Structure formats: C-alpha cells, structure tokens
C-alpha cells in the first residue's frame, strides 16, 4: 500500500489540508506542516507558490505573494518536502500548484525531484487530461501519483478521461469557481460524489469553500476525504510565523469532525 492509499484506508473519512509553501517564509513552513500532522490531518498538500495563481481566491493569492516576497524558490519547496519526509515517514505529502513552475526545467526533472523528496502526489491546476503528455507520463514513470481535479462542469461523458491516468485520489472541486469563496449546496455535493464514486476506483476527496468543522463533517458523510485550504491559509496570514498553534487547533477540530462524521 502506498502512503496515499493507506491514508484513505483507515476505516473513516480522511482530512486533507493545504497550506502554501514558504508562507510567510520558507523557514516557517516546517512548524506549520508539523501542526497539521499533530492536529490529525491525514494528507498534507503543500502549495508551490506562483506569480499568477488564476484558480485561487484572495486568501491563497496573498499567500503566494507573501511566499514569493519572502524569496521562496522551487528549491526551497523541495527542501521543505524532503525535511518533512524525514520527520514524518508515514504521512502522505502532495505538491499542488501550476504548470509553469512544475515543467520549466522539464517534467522529467520535476518528477525525479518529487520522487527524491518523498512526495507522494502532484496536483497541477492547469494541466487538464487533454495536455497530460506535459507532465503525466513523467510522474507515472517516477511512481508519483497524478491527482486530477473534477468539477461541477465535468460531466458523465468527460469523467472517464479525468480518471484515466489519475491515481492517489480524485479531488472534486465542489463549486465552479476559485478557492476560498462560497461553499456548494450540500445536496449538489451529495449527488456529485455519488455520481463520481460510481465510476471511480480511487478515493474521492471534496474541497473548495470548506471552512468549518460542521461543513467538513457534512461532506465527510458522503466523500472519502475533505480538503480544507483557505481557512488554514487565513490563520497563517493572521499569525505569520507563529501560526503553528492556531493551525493545530483548527486542524484538530476539523479532524475530529471529519473522522467521526459517519459514526455520529
């Protein structure tokens, strides 16, 4: 079993958490990632900062600006990942970001660096299945999961193409929109997850607009995992290098809600 599949095979829904790497500084990220793990997150998404995060709302846009402003380089992200893997041998780590920083030195280079750093999966926002050759083959050859996104606009006819070549889990974006804004109606999430799970052989995690333990619990009743990002990034924005405490606290509340969602 891979680290990712283990995370979704604990007999309860998984909590997936996102923070932007290098926010507020490259050196501060390690303690924030540790807080996520200590709070009970099952999968960690580490955002690779990009100058033009066109799928992100204000919270994560600003996190990108703070990170790049602190001088974060791709080498820093890979170092943060490598050190995380040494501290947490069992916790799956996923890099999330945009195509250009991932492919600028060649997809093979990036895939090899991910493998060396102990990265389990990659989510690339702006490489749809139609452009898979840009990154997918290199990641699969390196044994790194390519985690794709499905959205409310991904219809039945298109879903097989999204699933083909995906592994680890499928990230269902519950609203047509950008990160951190409105939450989708629970009934639409229930329907979409049921539809996707009928076709998918990999776990389905749901994100975008999930901010509170209550929202997370409602989603965890139907999905294999719940993704929370902007609410945690907001805490980093507020507390900066001292964010570990508040991040751990929110993560613990989210984890408790998600993990027990089906037993209550």
């Amino acid at each position, binding site marked *: 079993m891979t680290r990712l599949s283990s995370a979704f095979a604990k007999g309860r829904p998984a909590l997936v958490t996102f923070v932007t790497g290098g926010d507020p500084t490259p050196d501060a990220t390690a303690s924030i990632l540790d807080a996520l793990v200590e709070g009970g997150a099952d999968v960690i998404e580490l955002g690779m900062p990009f100058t033009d995060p066109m799928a992100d709302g204000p919270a994560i846009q600003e996190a990108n*600006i703070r990170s790049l402003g602190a001088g974060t380089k791709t080498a820093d992200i890979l170092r943060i990942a490598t050190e995380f893997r040494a501290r947490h041998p069992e916790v799956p780590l996923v890099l999330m970001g945009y195509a250009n920083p991932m492919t600028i030195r060649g997809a093979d280079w990036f895939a090899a660096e991910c493998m060396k750093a102990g990265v389990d999966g990659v989510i690339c926002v702006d490489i749809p299945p139609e452009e898979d050759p840009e990154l997918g083959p290199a990641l699969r050859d390196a044994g790194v999961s390519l985690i794709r*996104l499905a959205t409310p*606009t991904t219809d039945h006819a298109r879903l097989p193409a999204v699933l083909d070549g995906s592994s680890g889990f499928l990230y269902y974006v519950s609203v*047509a929109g950008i990160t951190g804004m409105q939450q989708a109606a629970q009934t639409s999430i229930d329907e979409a997850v049921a539809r996707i799970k009928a076709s998918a052989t990999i776990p389905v995690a749901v994100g975008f607009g999930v901010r509170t333990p209550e929202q997370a619990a409602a989603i965890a009743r139907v999905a294999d995992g719940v993704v929370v990002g902007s609410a945690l990034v907001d805490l980093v924005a507020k507390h900066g290098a001292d964010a570990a405490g508040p991040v751990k606290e929110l993560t613990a509340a989210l984890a408790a809600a998600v993990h027990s969602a089906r037993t209550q």
Partner: protein
Amino acid sequence: MLQMGFRAALPQRDWPRKGPLQIWTFPRGSAKRQGMNAPTPNSFRTLPDDRGHFGQFGGRYVAETLMPLILDLEREYRKAQADPAFQAEFDDLLEHYVGRPSPLYFAPRLTEELGGAQIWFKRDELNHTGAHKINNCIGQILLAMRMGKTRIIAETGAGQHGVATATVCARFGLPCVIFMGATDVARQAPNVFRMKLLGAEVVPVTAGAGTLKDAMNEALRDWVANVHNTFYIIGTAAGPHPYPEMVRDFQSVIGKEARVQMMDRTGRLPDVLVAAIGGGSNAIGLFHPFLDDPSVKMLGVEAAGHGLDKEHAASLAGGRPGILHGNKTYLLQDEDGQITEGHSISAGLDYPGIGPEHSWLKEIGRVDYTSVTDKEALSAFQLLCRTEGIIPALEPAHAIAAVQKLAPTMGKDQIILANLCGRGDKDIFSVAEHLGVSL
C-alpha cells in the same frame, strides 16, 4: 538593431516587377475578402492541429472547470465557420459598423524621408473605436450570442480592447464587465471613462503589479465562477485553444484586404510586412494571409522598453517557452518559471507573453522578429505625425521605428507594408509627459 539574419534574408530583386505574379493566378479586382491563395502541401496556414497546438506551442492549459466550456466553444466556432449566415453577418458589421475595408495608403513623404523602399500603411487606425481590436470583438460577440451567453467579460491593458468590447456589448445590448489592472486604470483614465460611457462596469485589479496579466488572471477567475452564462472575449491571439486561432481568423481580415488592395494598386505583393507585437493579434492578422507567399518577408516588432538588458516586454527576444493563461508560448520569466513583469511605454505591448503562433513562426523561421525601445518608438511616433499628418498609437509606432531602420537598406522599387493598427489619441497624454510637455 535589426537581426543580421533578417537583413541577409531579404529577398533578392529577381521577382516580376509588374503585373500579376506567375505563381499567383490572382484575379485583379475580385471580391474584397477573397485574397487567399489555396493552401499548398507545405502550407504555413494549416495549424493549429486538432489539439490546438502550433508545434510545441499553444494548447489548452486551463483548470478543469473551464475545459468543458473550451471544448464547447471550439465546437460552436467550427459550426459558425461553416455557416454562411455567420460570415455574412460578420462581414456586414465590419463594413457598415466598423468601416471596413480600411484604406491601403502609400506614405510619400515618409518614403522620401527614409530614402529607400516604398512605405505603405494598412490603416486600421481608421476603424470605429480607433484600432484593430474591434474586428475580433465583432466576431466573438456574434459567437457568444450563438452560444446563448448573456454576459460578457474581457481583460484590457491600455483600454483599447476594453473599449472595443464595451462597444460591441452596447451595440448588442449585453452586460459587460471589463477587468483592468489598477495601475492601468490610473494611467488610462480617458479609456476608463469611454468604457463607462458605453455602459461597461470597469473592475480595477489590485493583485500583482496591477497591469494586463493581472487583469487576465482576474478575468479567468470570474469566468471560472460564471461559466454557465458568461463569454470571455479575449483581446489577443493568445489564451487556450481555440482563442489563438479564432482571434487570428477574425483579425485576418486585415491581411486579406491588404493582399487584394496591394495587388489592385501595384499588381504585386509587398516585399516585407511589418507589425508591432504585444500579444500579436494585429501582426498575425496581417501576416497570416501572406504566410504561403514565399516572396513576402515578415517582421514582428516587440517592445524593448528601456532596452533588452533592462526592463522590457520582448517575450521572444528575452523570454523562453513556458505555460501561462492557457497556452504554451514564449514568456518573460525567471529560472523557477515565475512570471516577470513586462515594461513598455505602450500599455498595449506591456504583456510578458505572446500569442503561441508567433512563437511557432519564430522557431520555424518563417517570420523574423526584432524589437525597438521606448525611445525609438517615441521618435517614430513624432516622425509619422510630421511627415504624413497621422498620429499613430504607441503600439504601431514600434512598427514604424522598425520601418525607419529597414527602409533605407532596401531598394526604391521594393515595398514595405506596415500595419497602422491604432490611432494615437489615447496616447497624447503619455507622449506629452515623455516629451516634458505639461498639458
């Protein structure tokens, strides 16, 4: 400096000088927009491929939410292309609303001043709204209405595309939201007011440096949240497929007309085409109908800003291939693939990327690309005012600066055709400031 390769590659003067060329059995005075020769097996006009790629460039690098919409857009565009009624309505609006065909003008005093090749201008600055941008907006809004979309969004840098989009939205009664970098809103106040007069909502974008690329990010964010009813009118021949192809096709009216007009007036094709490039829509519109004419050389002119070793917006000269805003193309970026800000005196050229077809045409060597500085453009701007009584926009002033260098190296029987893609009314304030004049 023009690239040495370009000068060396200038055609030898051994083509037929009068009358129709042997290889082009082009009937003089035929229907206005049928100046196309049939594609040859080695045509440069067959791309993009089915996946929207021009060689390694182009493509559809968008978030999954947009992907089904992009595929739908392509299907609808193919249907529109095959529908004579769509083409007829496009042609009718271009003729009666935009004022096409735009004149082809021989510039006698500029030619004399430079003392070399004959200089001709395609006068797209005489279009309604004062630039070539409207050609594309007409095409895209007709497509939007075919698709049943009820809300239009667009990005704008200098405001020309924003004004053109607001214009067609007013003409067809659709609500219009224009995203514009906050920096550009401040330095392009007259165009902001024009857009508002035309009924558009102008949203200042404060992210990043508050310029064109940030406006495009914000437009994409709006689009992704409003896919069900919104059509995004992209202003240049860039973005995800099918935009680069579609914008090129709508702008190709420039080159198709010019080809017919030049044959009618001189009985021959021009030797060199010259056009300024930001995203590259006016240039590809002029170049594309001539790509399979082997005797016609082409020169795209990027903005070298303060100089290629300083701040500039010359993606081909100073960038390398990468992925941004839905396509792979040459981009100004650092070693990590972070996008750097472009700089040009011309807000319309101030973009760190370029349309993907230009990246391909550069790589295969069919089109040559050069760049001119802010200072050279400013001087060319004044030269055209003084010699021809035409105030050009700062964008085509870059093309004129390249013509200024090129013409004296060519013979008097040779012809340069440059695209005068916009008029300079919008730029008089910034030109005055650069010349130290307070208005």
